[in-house]
């Protein structure tokens, strides 16, 4: 007793003096809400921070591609088939230009192979204009307009920043258009899997016993099946004459049929460990209903983990959709997704002739890596009290 009282002033006083410059910092941590702690932790993960910016841009592009894309993604022009990417030029003999311009392309034939070749024609300059009137479209199906972020004012010449494909369609515009389906199918699929996973995993973890054993068996069974062959088989049954939106939802459902198992496992694990926690017991003794215990007491304490797992599940969905569409059993033209675009790159000759057809693949990799980084960062941030 005497020791304690003797030590106490010694401990606090020099401490206060030593931390004179940083008490606010310490206090800040002590009084911070869990949300703030999570944000501070997430902020430390630089790649995750950068990746979340990438993801935000990607989703913004998906929302507004009609405006961002210089052309209608279906507008074709045989003259420009396999036209190479045109570089943005900022300088010419007159000096700096803004907005930049592109040199014209001159199509010709290779004298030996008769293959179509393109040459940059430096005598022709096409100045790029912002907010130009181009191909008409209906923005979000509501607004009839023809305004594009950038493009050429006249119909003479082209601006193919990422080249053109087999039918002379602008790859950049198609890429932007495909982003909508590709990134949204990941989200929608994960939300659907999440609902299934939480429901089934929750039942399994909360009630335990026979229900748990049965559900675990089913999950094990589904996970033991090779998923791509099963997906292929299921999506082969989608009628060929279905409209795009219906195919879209059918694919999402097919992907979620397997995707939910992973999330169900996470939820079950969390439920099992939380079920015995004191605060859950306390709520039960206080007479809270089952639903209230789950929603009001248990869910908030595992929500952050679930969000991290969800983020990590999105890239798998995106990849699955890309694989299915790439094989021709997922989304089908005229619907556009990264996988549909990559189908153009299935032919080796086409890829050698026009390597820019692989750019959708680059976007897939960027999206997948970004989601992985953000998911990693969220997982670290999910438990801000862990050291």
């Amino acid at each position, binding site marked *: 007793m005497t020791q304690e009282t003797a030590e106490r002033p010694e401990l606090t006083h020099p401490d206060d003096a030593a931390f004179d410059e940083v008490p606010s910092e310490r206090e800040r941590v002590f009084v911070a809400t869990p949300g703030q702690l999570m944000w501070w932790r997430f902020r430390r993960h630089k790649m995750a921070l950068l990746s979340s910016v990438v993801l935000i841009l990607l989703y913004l592009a998906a929302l507004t591609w009609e405006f961002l894309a210089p052309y209608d993604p279906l507008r074709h022009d045989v003259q420009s088939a396999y036209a190479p990417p045109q570089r943005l030029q900022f300088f010419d003999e007159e000096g700096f230009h803004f907005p930049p311009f592109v040199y014209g392309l001159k199509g010709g034939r290779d004298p030996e192979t008769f293959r179509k070749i393109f040459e940059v024609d430096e005598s022709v300059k096409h100045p790029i204009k912002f907010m130009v009137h181009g191909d008409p479209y209906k923005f979000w199906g509501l607004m009839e307009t023809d305004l594009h972020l950038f493009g050429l004012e006249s119909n003479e010449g082209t601006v193919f920043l990422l080249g053109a494909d087999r039918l002379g369609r602008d790859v950049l515009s198609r890429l932007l258009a495909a982003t909508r389906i590709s990134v949204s199918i990941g989200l929608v699929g994960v939300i659907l899997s999440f609902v299934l996973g939480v429901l089934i995993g929750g039942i399994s973890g909360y009630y335990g016993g026979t229900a748990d054993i049965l559900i675990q*068996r089913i999950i*094990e*069974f589904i*996970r*033991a*099946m*090779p*998923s*791509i*062959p*099963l997906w*292929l*088989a*299921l999506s*082969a*049954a989608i*009628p060929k004459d279905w409209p795009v939106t219906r195919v879209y939802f059918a694919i999402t459902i097919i992907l979620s049929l397997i995707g939910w198992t992973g999330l169900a496992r996470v939820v079950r694990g969390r439920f099992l460990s939380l079920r015995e926690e004191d605060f859950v017991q306390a709520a039960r003794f206080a007479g809270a209903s089952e639903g209230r215990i789950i929603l009001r007491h248990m869910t908030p304490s595992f929500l952050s983990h679930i969000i991290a797992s969800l983020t990590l599940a999105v*890239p798998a969905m995106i*990849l699955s959709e*890309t*694989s299915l569409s*790439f*094989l*021709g*059993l997922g989304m089908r033209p005229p619907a556009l997704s990264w996988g549909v675009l*990559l189908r153009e*790159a*299935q032919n*080796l000759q086409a*890829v*050698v002739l026009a*390597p820019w057809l*692989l750019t959708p*693949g680059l976007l*897939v*990799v960027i999206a*997948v*890596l970004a989601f*992985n980084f953000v998911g990693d960062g969220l997982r670290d941030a999910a438990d801000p009290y862990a050291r």
Partner: protein
Amino acid sequence: MLAFIVRRILLLIPTLFFITIVTFLVIELPPGDYLDAYAANLAAGGDPVDQERLEALRKQFGLDKPVPLRYLQWLTNILRGNFGFSFEWNVPVEALIWERLALTFFISLSTILFTWVVGFLIGVYSAVNQYSIGDYVFTTLGFIGLGLPNFLIALVIMWYAFDQFGLRLSGLFSQEYRGAPWSLAKFLDMITHLWLPLLILGTAGTAEMIRTMRANLLDELNKPYVETARAKGLKEQVLVRKYPVRVALNPFVSTVGWTLPNLISGATIVSVVLSLPTTGPMLLGALMTQDMYLAASFLLMLSVLTVVGTLISDLLLAVLDPRIRMEAQ
């Protein structure tokens, strides 16, 4: 041990039963029956459709009976080794699937071995030389390997090889061995073509293995017993190999269970890109033309073999690690 094995094998029965139901659903899912698709194909090809023959076939395959009966009939046929008829190829399904299934499994098993050896070696190196340049290189490569879809790697490698060296990297055999009967020369020829699918299929798996091995070993290396052994003067190499690596190996081995389904799954699409004579391209073709007996047989056999393969790996694991045997009881 015996009880454990028996239990696992008994658990296999409901799983196999589920697989047959899922497969049968796949056959039943497309609108109309497969003879409709067959007739439509014939008509599209300009061949006359023989209604009598269709009816005969319908009878032969029991398509006029209700669904549960059809399922039973299909199941008993399969148990007798009769997988049905491929309308696309005009031969019994059995004549088509076995060689392709065998090749698929050969490639998958080789890939597992490849990922194990490479993942193990690099994982140990990365952990022992943590934060060295080599560690950074491998960790970065591993991260990219996890993010890259297999088929994209395949496309890029094929394009690069063709563009730079004029090489056509596809198929599993040289021209002269395609369709030839099996011989030692054909086998050796296949081995020389095997590296590319191995490399492509193995990327993601290897990356995962490196991560697992590195993390496990790093955990072990920081434990006091390692320090003790070092203090007693044990050589670093002997020390690492003898104790921490063995402990770290256990979680590593247990990943086999999910490796196999993932591999079979990934191999389907990679083999389409590389046009390997495995199950992938033929399954895809069968699904596209609604050649449902062929497609379903592939799906069934792939699933069954995957489940059995996983079971074998689980049993091996139980032999290796007594704790797993105990836990299961």
